[in-house]
Structure formats: C-alpha cells, structure tokens
C-alpha cells in the first residue's frame, strides 16, 4: 500500500507537467497571438514588440516554457493579458465562488441520490422505482446548458420567481438556487442509479443472507451490512464526479454570469489569454488529481481487500 501511495503521489506532479507541456505547446504551436484584434485597428509594430518583451513572448518557446515552470514552482502564475493583473489574484477571487458552487451541488446531489437510490433498490420494480430510474436517466441525459435554458426561461423570465444573474455574497439562497440545482442534477441522476444498483448487488450477497438467517432484524441488516458496503462504489465515482462538476461549472457560470473560475476559463479561451488558460487548466488537473487520490486512499481504508491486491 505504501509503495502504491508513493507511486501515486509521484505520478500527480508528472501528470501536471505533461498537462502543462501539452497546453503550452498547443498555445505556441499555432499562429495568432493575444494581440490579434479582428474587430479593431491592429497594434503598432513597436507596441507589439514592447508587449512581447514585457510578457516574455520574445524568448524561444522552450525557454518560455522553462521560465513558466520556474515561476509556477514559486506559485507565480504570470500576468493576465486580457486584464493586466496577476493571474493568481484573478483566480483567487473566482476560486471561492466556484468551490462553494461545486461543493453545494455535490452535497445536494448526494443528499438526494442516496435516499432515492436506497428506496428504489429496496422497492425494486415498484412504481416509485421506475419513476426514480426514469428521472435519474433524464437528469443525466439532458445537458447542462439545455437545463440552463429551461430553468432561466421558466423560473427566471416567465414566472419571475428567481433571479438569474450573478452570485451575490455567497449567502443569497434564492440567487444560488438555480445554478446549484442545475449543476447537481447530472450527478444526482448518475449517483441515484449507482446507489440503486450497488444496494441491489449487496442485497444478493451471501453475507446478507447469513445475517438474515441468523435472525437479525431487517433494520440491522440494512444498516450494518447492506448500506455500509453499498457506499464503497459511490465513493469511487467522486473523482469523476469532480471532473463533471468542473465541466458543468463552465456552462452554468457562463449562463448565470457567476464570477467563478469556470466563467474565467471560458472568457480567457475566447480572448486567447494564455496565462489564464494555462493556470485554470492546471488548477483543474490538480483538483481532479487530488480528488482521485483522496478517493483511492479512502477506498483502501474502507475495503481491506484493496490493500491485499496492491
């Protein structure tokens, strides 16, 4: 296990380096730079040369990369070309918003999915089960941005029930309701289906039959044997779930004008603001890497068989 842990810990910075290299190479291998203005007058040549020197864009590409990595290690993420401010500051402003949105959504998804999935599995093939499965499928299938359209047009514009612009101070429940629910829905659907199938699988296991055979009350069987084991697979998907929340945050933050990292990423993509694109991309890779690592560790702690296998 410790050998495995060390290998995983070493793999994370290597993966991040590969991610940085690919993003950097893509950014610099293609023509067109941050000074291209399709809709405005082109910059004077001397201004472009000065700007390139200021941002270090006049160095050979491999040197630029080394400089970037060197700065990165010292947590200097460079300066945003679009906004002229340190990238670290800009991300520092957006990160709390995005983290709050993501965590709220994940907790909401779990809070709904676990009871629904368990009930659905215990009452297999009942009307409630079929309805839950159908709703879960719809939740996972309808894309985020289509949900945004439906929710904003209906609850925001037609019924005028909820505000749909901005985020406020992070305490405004009415303002946060729609983005949080929309971001949570796909995870909710997916987790409900997963909880249902994993409870069903554990219910068929020999140790559950033994527990019942030795006369344990159904309630104790459920609590002590079924649920505990059924949640292990749920844990393993929290890594991929983080990845999905990241992608969802691009769309939801853009639709609702929420000043988070997702909207920042999309804005920087449209402006080809590479210091910001690099930093946000690395941040996402780091978040997903850490989530996967945490899940692996928790998994090893919960399921003793994993240790033996490693």
């Amino acid at each position: 296990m410790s050998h495995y842990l060390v290998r995983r810990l070493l793999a994370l910075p290597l993966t991040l380096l590969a991610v940085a290299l690919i993003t950097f190479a893509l950014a610099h291998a293609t023509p067109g730079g941050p000074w291209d203005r399709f809709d405005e007058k082109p910059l004077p040549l001397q201004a472009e040369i000065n700007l390139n020197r200021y941002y270090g864009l006049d160095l050979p590409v491999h040197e630029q990369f080394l400089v970037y990595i060197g700065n990165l290690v010292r947590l200097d993420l460079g300066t945003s070309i679009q906004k002229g401010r340190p990238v670290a500051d800009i991300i520092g402003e957006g990160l709390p918003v995005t983290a709050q949105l993501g965590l709220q959504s994940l907790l909401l998804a779990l809070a709904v999915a676990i009871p629904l999935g368990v009930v659905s599995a215990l009452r297999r093939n009942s009307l409630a089960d079929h309805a839950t499965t159908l709703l879960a499928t719809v939740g996972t299938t309808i894309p985020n941005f289509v949900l945004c359209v439906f929710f904003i047009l209906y609850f925001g514009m037609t019924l005028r029930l909820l505000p749909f612009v901005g985020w406020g101070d992070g305490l405004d429940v009415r303002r946060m309701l729609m983005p949080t629910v929309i971001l949570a829905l796909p995870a909710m659907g997916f987790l409900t289906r997963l909880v249902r199938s994993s409870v069903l699988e554990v219910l068929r296991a020999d140790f559950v039959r033994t527990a019942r055979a030795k006369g344990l009350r159904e309630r104790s069987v459920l609590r002590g044997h079924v649920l505990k084991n059924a949640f292990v697979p749920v844990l393993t998907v929290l890594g991929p779930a983080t990845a999905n929340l990241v992608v969802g945050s691009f769309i939801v933050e853009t639709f609702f004008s929420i000043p988070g990292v997702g909207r920042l990423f999309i804005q920087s993509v449209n402006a080809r603001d590479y210091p910001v694109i690099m930093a946000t991309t690395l941040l996402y890779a780091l978040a997903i890497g850490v989530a996967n690592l945490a899940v692996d560790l928790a998994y090893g702690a919960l399921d003793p068989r994993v240790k033996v296998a490693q």
Partner: protein
Amino acid sequence: MTGVGQRSLWRDAASRLAANRAAMAGLVVVALFAFVAIAAPILAPYDPAAGDTRNHELDPFWGDPAYRSAAFPLGTDQLGRDVLSRLIWSARVSLLIGFVPVSIIVTIGVAVGLVAGYYGRWADLLLMRAVDVIYAFPELLFVIVIVTAARGTWIGELGSGIVLIFVSIATVSWVGMARLVRGQVLALRGLEFIDAARAMGASDRRILVRHVLPNVLAPVIVAVAFGVPGAMLTESALSFLGIGIKPPTPSWGVMINEGFTLAIQSPWPVLMPAVCISVVMLAFTFLGDGLREALDPRA
C-alpha cells in the same frame, strides 16, 4: 463453427433489444433524426442562413395571432431566419459530428487497443501513459484547449469549423476506446479458446481477427452508442460557448448562443433547439441502455 455460434448470439441480442420498449422508442427517434439530417436540403423550406428582417421574431403557429405567419410554422429568429429550416439543417451538423469522429475513434481505438492488449510491451506502456494524461482532464476541457489553439489556422476554417471539431474530439477520445478494447483483450488472452486456437497453429493475425475481435465487438458497440451523442453534445456545448460551429451555419448550440440574449422578448428560437437536443440525447440514451442490456444480460 464460430459462424453459427456468433449468429445466434447476435440474434439473441437483437430479440432482447426488440423487446425493450424504451430502446425501440429511442431507435425510432434516432432513425427519424437521421432521416431529417440526410434529407435536410429537401425538407427545409428556406435557406437556413438567409434572413429577411421584415419577418423577424415571428411566433410559432401556436403563438400570438398578430405575430405569426403561415409561411413560417415555427416562427423566425431575430434576423428573420426560418427557425424550422435552421433546426433541420442543424440536425445535419449534429449527425456529421456524431458519426465522423466516432468512426475515427473506433478505427484507431480498436486497432491500438488490440495491439496493446495482445502484444503488450511498449505499445501497452505508451497507451497507458496517454491514458494517464488524457484522464487527468475532463474530455470537454481538452477539446476546448485544442479548439482554442487551432481556431485561427486553416483547419479551423474548414467547413465552418466542423472539421476542427472532428479532429479535436477524435484526438481526445480514441484513448478511451483503446483502453476499453485493451482491457477486453487482456481478459480474453488467458481464455482456453485462444490457447486452443494457438495450439492448432493459428497465426497471431488470425487469432486477433477471427477470435479476439468478434469478442470485443459488443462493448465497442455499446461505447459507440454513447460516443455518438457524447460528440454531438460536445459540439453543441462548444457552439453555445462561441468556439464551435461558426455562424451563419446553423447548429442547435449556435441557435441557443445567438438567441439567448434576446430570450426575454423571443424565447422560441432558443427553446426549440434546446428541446431538439434533449429529445435526441434521451433517444440515444434509451437506445444505448437497451443495447447494453441486450448485449450483456448479466449487467
């Protein structure tokens, strides 16, 4: 021998699929969608890119009688373009996006997966390192980075940006297919019938093509059933974000992007592509779930 066995396996799967009502409904919708996409030039009443501002923002036929016209049954957008024609031509873009990248992904992914899984060694090592890097990201993020980098080049101009979307999706997604096939091959490699074939003197090539490939087809088919709508979804998300299909070429994502700022006064040009995406996505999901159950009854 294998021929007879295979046929009955596929026939079993087909009858299981036919008994699944949700999957059949999905299949009907997918077929209808494909028909509309292919027949778009015949079905669409107007040029989807040409508008007449005198007829802008007309309601659909169930809307306000003062603001609708029998000539535009689903109304018009802010530039006076016929919404029905734009929806129909968008289906064509979606169909292309659904099938072209997935064909590339299957070709490369199956080939690499077979080789990596069967021969192992450096091919396997390379594949798994690529998997590590690609899986460090959500696919859409990687696609966005590639599209951003290449949008300004000649390839970004081809077919209103559609070719770049093909290439980006294929570049990112072949790895997942290769990993899937590799896993299947690894599981098959230790089984008796492969040993038996080898003992009877079959060459590696014959074993791969006649014995391994048919046995990895079922999971590949299921992956395709989910890969096609996945690619379509990527395109509409990119187009909604303004980095996908270049206007005036219509796509459902482009329609949502263009109409959204005006949605308060004219919601229909936004709602209708959103409904189309939802229906097609649901149809593919029901079909995919049905295929998975039909091809692997144990799951």
